[in-house]
């Protein structure tokens, strides 16, 4: 069993291509949480994030040949691309992508009420600022900053060159800095020293 647990994603994908459902189940159990987090960060809604991940995995099961091992891409990098593209499609269909759900979920009941309110407000502003970014900038930020992908992997996942990815990241951070400075969460340059 331990050997099966350690089997690489790419090896499991070879078995999925042979319609091995056990291998598919292992992939799903191994990666659902990670890709759910990716989808959730993109769309900000639990149900929609679940739908995105489910749809992506079921497509993988129906058409495993869409992952081409010969291209040498890691399974996770390729699947980030699948999930991110699905999330981007949904965001384009639904322009108003941010609800109150995230804010309500963030509250930690163990903290005192004042601190809780401050944190909640701060996180609300951060989340709102990220969700308000243009879709591709948001995707670049999520993949690099929150998913921990290298610039090369994130560029592959988004289907852009590394320079384009760096530009997306730079614009995302500039936009966030402006918005969070306006909200008073980041000090203005003139406030230093």
């Amino acid at each position, binding site marked *: 069993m331990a050997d099966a647990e350690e089997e690489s994603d790419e090896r499991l994908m070879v078995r999925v291509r042979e*319609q091995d*459902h056990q291998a*598919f*189940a292992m992939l*799903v*159990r191994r990666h*659902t*949480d990670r890709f*759910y*987090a990716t989808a*959730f*960060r993109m769309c900000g809604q*639990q149900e929609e*994030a*679940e739908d995105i*991940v*489910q749809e992506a*995995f*079921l497509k993988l*099961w*129906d058409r495993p040949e869409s992952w081409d091992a010969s291209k040498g891409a890691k399974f996770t990098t390729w699947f980030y691309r699948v999930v991110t593209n699905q999330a981007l499609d949904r965001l384009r269909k639904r322009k108003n992508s941010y609800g109150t759900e*995230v804010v309500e*979920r*963030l509250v930690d009941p163990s903290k005192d009420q004042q601190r809780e309110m401050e*944190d909640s407000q*701060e*996180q609300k502003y*951060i*989340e709102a600022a*990220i969700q308000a970014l243009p879709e591709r900038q948001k995707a670049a930020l999520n993949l690099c*900053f*929150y998913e921990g992908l290298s610039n090369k992997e994130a560029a592959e996942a988004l289907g852009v060159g590394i320079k384009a990815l760096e530009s997306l990241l730079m614009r995302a*951070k500039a936009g*966030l*800095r402006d918005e*969070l400075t306006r909200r008073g*969460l*980041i*000090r203005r340059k003139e406030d230093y020293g």
Partner: protein
Amino acid sequence: MVDELDELLTKRAEPQARSHLAEKIIAASLEGRGQKSKAGGFDLAGWFGALADEFLLPRPALAMAVFLVLGLFAGMNIETPTDEVGEDLVSYLFVDESFDTGDWL
């Protein structure tokens, strides 16, 4: 020195894991496989089902409304034999009372 923005961005909360989601996906994939295996051998009912699916209307309400409007339009524009009767109704209903029926009436 850690950038103030980066520090702030780390405060973004982690999405909570969905414990049931993986099992839900696995169950859904098994349902799909059941459907696939049924399609493996020849199944008459399945074949008729597939044939019926070919005639499914993607937007039945819209299709019905369009057919209704087209039907009304065609009905108002196409001449029918009853229209000819209507135009010549007087002659159709005319009874020649001068005709001698004899004694049998």
